[in-house]
């Protein structure tokens, strides 16, 4: 294979920064979850790229299946929390999540 490790990691870092930018800037809770998804996708590409580098792609596949499962669990739980929060507070703005403020 002629894939270069450098190209993969260039785009991994780019995707990581896009997700981190989304999580820093956005006040919308769903947008923040989308940013977390983008970051986990970049981690997934990093794992498969390292698997291709050490020529053991099957181990990387086994790890990726675990990553995808954890990703789904995080998204399902996060969306359930967001919907519940919307029913309680009528808002998905993180600035309004200040009930515990003294």
């Amino acid at each position: 294979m002629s894939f270069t490790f450098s190209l993969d990691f260039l785009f991994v870092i780019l995707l990581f920064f896009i997700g981190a930018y989304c999580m820093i800037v956005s006040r919308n809770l769903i947008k923040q979850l989308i940013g977390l998804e983008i970051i986990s996708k970049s981690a997934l590409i990093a794992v498969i790229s390292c698997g291709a580098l050490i020529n053991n792609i099957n181990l990387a596949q086994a790890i990726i299946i675990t990553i995808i499962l954890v990703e789904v669990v995080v998204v399902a739980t996060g969306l359930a929390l967001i919907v519940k929060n919307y029913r309680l507070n009528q808002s998905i703005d993180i600035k309004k999540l200040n009930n515990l403020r003294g």
Partner: protein
Amino acid sequence: MTYHLFLYLIITIAAVMAVMHKKMLSSAIMLAVMSIGVSLLLFNFNAPWAGVFELSVCAGLITVLFISAVSLLKKEDELLKENYAKFIILPFISIALFILGTIYFMPYFEYINGYTKTNVSENLSLGEIIWKNRGFDLFGQITILATAVFVIKSIFYKRSDL
């Protein structure tokens, strides 16, 4: 190689559009496009099982979850005025960091090629790795799934009439 780069460009453009779009529904659809790009990338890496998982779970299930959650929240995306201009310098700093990193550091990673290949004693198939090497992880995965079910059940708990 050109196909590989093309897939990366699709993934990056879809990620940027998912971040920058104002409507949450469009963001969710762009996230699905990005997942399809990642699964094509996995197929191109000669990892078909991971690609199938990514395509069915991330591009299918997560998109359905996001769209159903967005449909439960009404008229929210017009209310939130987000101030993207405040941190607009951040992507430019990151792009400058990549260019510098690519020029100076990235070529050194290429020398790792062949160094770690000697450590791989045997190339097992995916089923052998899952059942033999990482068999205990299946227990953890089942625990995580059960925890998620328990958490969602406890979030949407409906109190019965006393």
